[in-house]
């Protein structure tokens, strides 16, 4: 099967700046990739490129079967991106935001409820306008959007930043569930010890390309067949 993400010496520009200077990456569906590296290494740009938001100017880039050098808009409807700034409307409540996103993606708004509950957005939180929520709570709403939309490719840009321990545990579960459901997950972070256990592949970026590659804890677990306790069912 063709990989969900196939990048080969991909160069992508953010404005006139080569944010990616030749990245190689191959990830199958059901895989979790942790993206590490210092600030400015190109982590966010890698995620945005996979979302079809940055133009790939050279190299190969095929995401979910769409060649990004030909058309980078088709891939967008199948991608869920959680960036530093959550894509939410401040004046709408958590529930309204999730319902809007779900209906925009062409799904039934019935999918919003379970997602809101899964993220613990019930009662008052559900009815508060997002502008009045804390950063961590906003992150939860944005995650609820992802859960409800269930895209084929999850792009999480430093999702752990600013989350408390409980939310981090929940995030780990969501990532594992998404991957078990056949989605591909890219997860950027500054904290190797947090994301490596969740990931099949770990790539360390520097200067807009891959400086180091290693296996993550999830693959090790899967290969020994002890996915128990992390909620991971082996899909390989």
């Amino acid at each position, binding site marked *: 099967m063709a990989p969900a993400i196939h990048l080969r010496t991909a160069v992508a520009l953010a404005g006139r700046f080569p944010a990616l200077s030749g990245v190689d990456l191959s990830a199958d569906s059901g895989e979790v990739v942790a993206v590490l590296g210092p600030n400015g290494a190109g982590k966010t740009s890698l995620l945005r490129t996979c979302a079809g938001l940055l133009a790939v100017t050279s190299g190969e880039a095929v995401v979910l079967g769409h060649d990004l050098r030909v058309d980078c808009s088709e891939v967008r409807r199948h991608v869920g991106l959680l960036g530093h700034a959550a894509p939410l*409307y401040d004046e709408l409540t958590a529930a309204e935001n999730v319902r809007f996103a779900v209906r*925009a993606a062409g799904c039934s708004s019935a999918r919003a409820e379970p997602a809101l509950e899964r993220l613990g957005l019930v009662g008052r939180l559900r009815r508060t306008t997002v502008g009045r929520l804390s950063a961590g709570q906003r992150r939860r709403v944005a995650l609820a959007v992802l859960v409800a939309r269930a895209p084929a490719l999850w792009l999480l840009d430093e999702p752990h930043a600013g989350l408390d321990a409980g939310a981090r545990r929940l995030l780990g579960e969501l990532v594992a569930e998404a991957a078990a459901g056949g989605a591909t997950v890219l997860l950027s972070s500054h904290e190797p010890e947090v994301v490596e256990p969740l990931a099949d592949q770990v790539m360390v970026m520097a200067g807009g390309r891959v400086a180091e590659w290693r296996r993550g804890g999830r693959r090790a677990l899967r290969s020994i067949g002890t996915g128990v306790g992390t909620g991971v069912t082996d899909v390989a």
Partner: protein
Amino acid sequence: MWRDALLVAGKDLRIELRSRVALWQVLPFAVLALVLFAFALGPSPVAMRRAAPGLFWLAVLFSTVLATQRSFAVEAGEGTRDGLRLSGLDPAGIFLGKAAAVFVQLAALELVLWAGVTLLFGVRIHATWLAVIACLLATVGLSSAGVVYGALSAGLRVRETLLPLLVLPILAPVLLAGSRAWSAAIDGAVSSGVGWLRILAPFAVAYLAVGVALYGPLQEAG
């Protein structure tokens, strides 16, 4: 496309209902503009009555710039802009939805301004239907052209200064035809008024079509 348009329009109007920016900022600005125009003209009732249609449409024009700026300010957070592009919404649907939301707000604003020119300038309109049709056609044109240019300048750092420069010359025919049609409505000169509707209608149709056709590339370029 229509479903997406409804969804976006509903979302924009709901945001406006919550934030009340159009109600508490754009509308007072438009009324204030009327009052300032009156100061500039001097206290002669005759001069005011003659100038009233033009002033009404000038106020509407400036409010269009503000309303479209606001329409894209709610998408201004980097996250939301990407969100709209990643949402899976049809670009033509986004355009129609945003234009519809701006249309509703401008139409409400025109009602208030209408009352304003009646009270402040002592204007009596003889052919009311003519004035209403002129308002409807002009507002379709204003909101669609406004949204097209709003999208064009949305992502730019210089949008506040660039948008008026780009959009006001485009809207000039609406100002011209709208105020002439209103003059005709005030005088009861129906035939010349209907003639001006023939400028407003193609303008509205042209910019609706342009928006539906070009919003996709526009969104990419913003």
